[in-house]
């Protein structure tokens, strides 16, 4: 005979039994051998049971929700392909934004899958381990759904076909790659701080909103559907990020200076990498959402400000150089687009000069800087183009040892002067674009001295040869197809032909 069923446990108790209840303290092998990586960074965890699960999803619920989202997403992707959705975008220039996304961001989603699996195995607390495992699955989802979303564009446009090969080699793609390599080669708590907190919590809206809203504004139904579908995953990732930071800070006062240093580092790393997104927003979207400067004000200055005010009760302060980054939000997109314009011959997407209308928009959005510092340069380049003397920079640029971006950024407070910093380490001189990047190097010189700097590698003869043609071949970048200006590109010719055909069909 069965005794009457007792009152059910509450969700929290039940979830704890379903996750951390599975864990045990090993005795045939030492816990430190089973979990060899979670102590060397000096983060002190006195009581893992204090971990508050940021979300409570058992695997069956995970499969159910995620499977349902996948069904819906792939239905849209199928329909997009069947109906030639690429014909509905605002302009073929838009496609270059997603070329940057597939070559620069998608491989990072894969790296995130791998490293969350690393955390899902190697963090001693079972609660965060389960959360990390789900994120590892999610990140794999994002990599694969991005590929499947963009797969259709690859069939009709150039610049996508060799994305993994390019990610491992092309000069500007070493910026996002080294960013993520840096995080994955760090200890588990630094990775959590770098990716879950600094990136996914503090800065994510500056990556996600621009690309996904950009897709929505520019008629890219496939990418925007992916974006909506990924949103609830991102919400989980954000709650993990904030929980990790609070947990570390609550566990031991000695953790604060370590965490603060990581927050400073990863804020600056993120700011520099997001400069590519800034350029995409201000220059590459035929229909613009908002300026980078506006996005920065909303998502960093306001939202980030409130966040750090909240975290100040733990002693955590606003990241170092946040004021400089805010000042740079007036400049970074213009400076980056200028770099790509000059080096269009070695870029895996097309470039162009802003039209009059677009320059008027930039003037309006950047009243302090655009007309004064950047419009004259673009107008000069436009005149040169008109004379058949389109400007190409044929000298290889010096790269910052930390962020790996060509040293084209100006001094804080003086937008007419290029900033240079340098330091010496073991008899060698290393160069930086900024104080932020120099500080990061000086905190970990043995790490950053190892960087695979694309320009150095070209000079050392490791990139297929000495001239541009050799390097492009090594990049598997088809000269005249994947690179150079949009104007005259096969992408443009095809788009124009489609537009003409549509007019004909429409009668």
């Amino acid at each position, binding site marked *: 005979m069965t005794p009457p069923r007792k009152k059910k446990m509450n969700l929290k108790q039940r979830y704890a039994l379903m996750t951390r209840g599975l864990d045990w303290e090993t005795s*045939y092998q030492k816990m430190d051998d089973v979990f060899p990586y979670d102590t060397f960074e000096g983060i002190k965890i006195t009581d893992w049971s204090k971990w508050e699960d940021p979300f409570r999803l058992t695997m069956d619920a995970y499969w159910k929700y995620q*499977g349902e989202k*996948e069904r819906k997403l792939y239905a849209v992707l199928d329909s997009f392909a069947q109906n030639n959705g690429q014909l509905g975008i605002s302009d073929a220039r838009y496609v270059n934004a997603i070329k940057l996304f597939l070559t620069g961001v998608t491989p990072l989603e894969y790296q995130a899958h791998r490293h969350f699996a690393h955390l899902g195995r190697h963090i001693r607390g079972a609660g965060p381990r389960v959360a990390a495992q789900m994120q590892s699955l999610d990140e794999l989802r994002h990599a694969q759904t991005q590929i499947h979303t963009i797969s259709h564009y690859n069939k009709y446009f150039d610049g996508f076909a060799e994305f*993994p090969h390019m990610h491992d080699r092309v000069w500007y793609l070493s910026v996002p790659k080294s960013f993520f390599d840096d995080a994955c080669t760090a200890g588990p708590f630094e990775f959590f701080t770098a990716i879950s907190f600094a990136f996914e919590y503090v800065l994510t809206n500056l990556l996600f909103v621009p690309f996904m809203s950009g897709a929505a504004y520019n008629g890219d139904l496939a990418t925007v559907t992916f974006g909506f579908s990924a949103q609830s995953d991102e919400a989980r990732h954000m709650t993990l990020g904030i929980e990790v930071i609070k947990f570390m800070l609550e566990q031991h006062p000695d953790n604060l200076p370590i965490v603060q240093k990581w927050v400073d580092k990863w804020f600056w790393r993120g700011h520099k990498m997001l400069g590519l997104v800034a350029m995409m927003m201000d220059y590459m979207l035929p229909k613009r959402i908002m300026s980078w400067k506006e996005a920065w004000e909303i998502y960093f200055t306001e939202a980030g400000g409130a966040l750090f005010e909240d975290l100040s009760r733990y002693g955590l302060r606003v990241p170092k150089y946040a004021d400089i980054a805010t000042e740079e939000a007036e400049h970074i997109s213009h400076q980056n687009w200028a770099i790509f314009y000059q080096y269009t011959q070695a870029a895996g997407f097309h470039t162009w000069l802003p039209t009059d209308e677009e320059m008027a928009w930039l003037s309006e959005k950047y009243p302090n800087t655009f007309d004064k510092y950047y419009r004259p340069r673009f107008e000069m380049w436009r005149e040169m183009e008109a004379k058949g003397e389109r400007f190409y920079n044929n000298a290889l640029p010096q790269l910052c040892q930390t962020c790996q971006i060509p040293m084209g950024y100006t001094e804080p407070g003086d937008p007419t002067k290029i900033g240079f910093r340098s330091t010496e380490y073991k008899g060698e001189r290393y160069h930086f674009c900024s104080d932020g990047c120099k500080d990061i190097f000086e905190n970990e010189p043995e790490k950053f001295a190892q960087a695979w700097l694309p320009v150095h590698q070209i000079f050392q003869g490791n990139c297929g040869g000495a001239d541009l043609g050799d390097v492009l071949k090594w990049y598997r970048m088809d000269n005249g197809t994947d690179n150079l200006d949009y104007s005259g590109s096969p992408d443009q010719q095809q788009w124009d032909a489609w537009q003409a055909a549509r007019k004909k069909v429409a009668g």
Partner: protein
Amino acid sequence: MSIDIKTMNVEPKRHTFAHVARRLGSDAPASRYEEGVYDLQATTHFHYRPLWGPEHWHFDEGRTQIKMSDWYKFKDPRQYYYGTYTIARANMHQTTDRNFAFEEKREMLANIEPEWRQMIVNYLIPLRHYEWGANMNACSISDAGYGTAITSAAIFTAGDRLGIAQILSRIGISLGNGTGDLLDDAKAQWMDGEAWQGLRKSVEDSLVVKDWFEVLVAQFLVMDGLIYPLVYNHFDSEGQKHGAAAISILCEFMVDWNTEHNRWVDAVIKVAAKESEENQALLSNWYGEWRDEIHKALQPLAAMVLGDGADSALADVKEQLDKRAGKLGLNL
């Protein structure tokens, strides 16, 4: 009347990504599995050595002694990418939910003889910890493995093992009338019960193995290859004699999952063994060592459940596994 929908005919420039076309041998339309898996992992020009282990890059072929000319030979026969994986598991688990509802409605757990009820707490519910160990090993493979074909399938397996541990927990909670009391009892078995110490030691030993391919052999081929048929076949049959039909129904997920999982495991082992004599020797050696150890470790557990029938059941699962390993190209 026929309706002529006017459309524009637009011709694609290519049918798939260049790296996928190279693998397929031509620019043919590729499957979502192929596009979502092939060559996704970075392979070269890494920037920094890991602070947590500078002897390797974070993605490094040298994390196992197994050598492959191409790590994408490990194609998943199930063709799982994230979408097909989650949809397949959501469907499987729908059946599990129905089974739990069916059991509850008919109060089938009440039909189990009281002594056998205790036996279930002693033999079945502690397996949630075994599954958690398997989950950790699957994560290790996804972490340290090389190439997306392996790492994606491994993280799916990690999710599977957590899911199975949670089904076992649900059975324990149901048996315990909605409380976690029996989960505590089962954990005490896992930690201190004599029948479990051999297996717990083997699981803990597997958690410190550095070579991820050895982990794959130890966990997925040997441990699972002996434990699943022993528990879900031999132990379960024994339970039938004691009114435990409900347990068979509630464990249906595990039985179905194991059949499917073995298809992937077999494909991986077969391809690795076929690659070279060196691989074959390594795999055979790992197989032999782990099989002997696990076989021995399972004896007290089998004896507890099956009594005199233990030896023949263990001999049977060992014979079946040897046969399977032989077919996969291992030397026994």
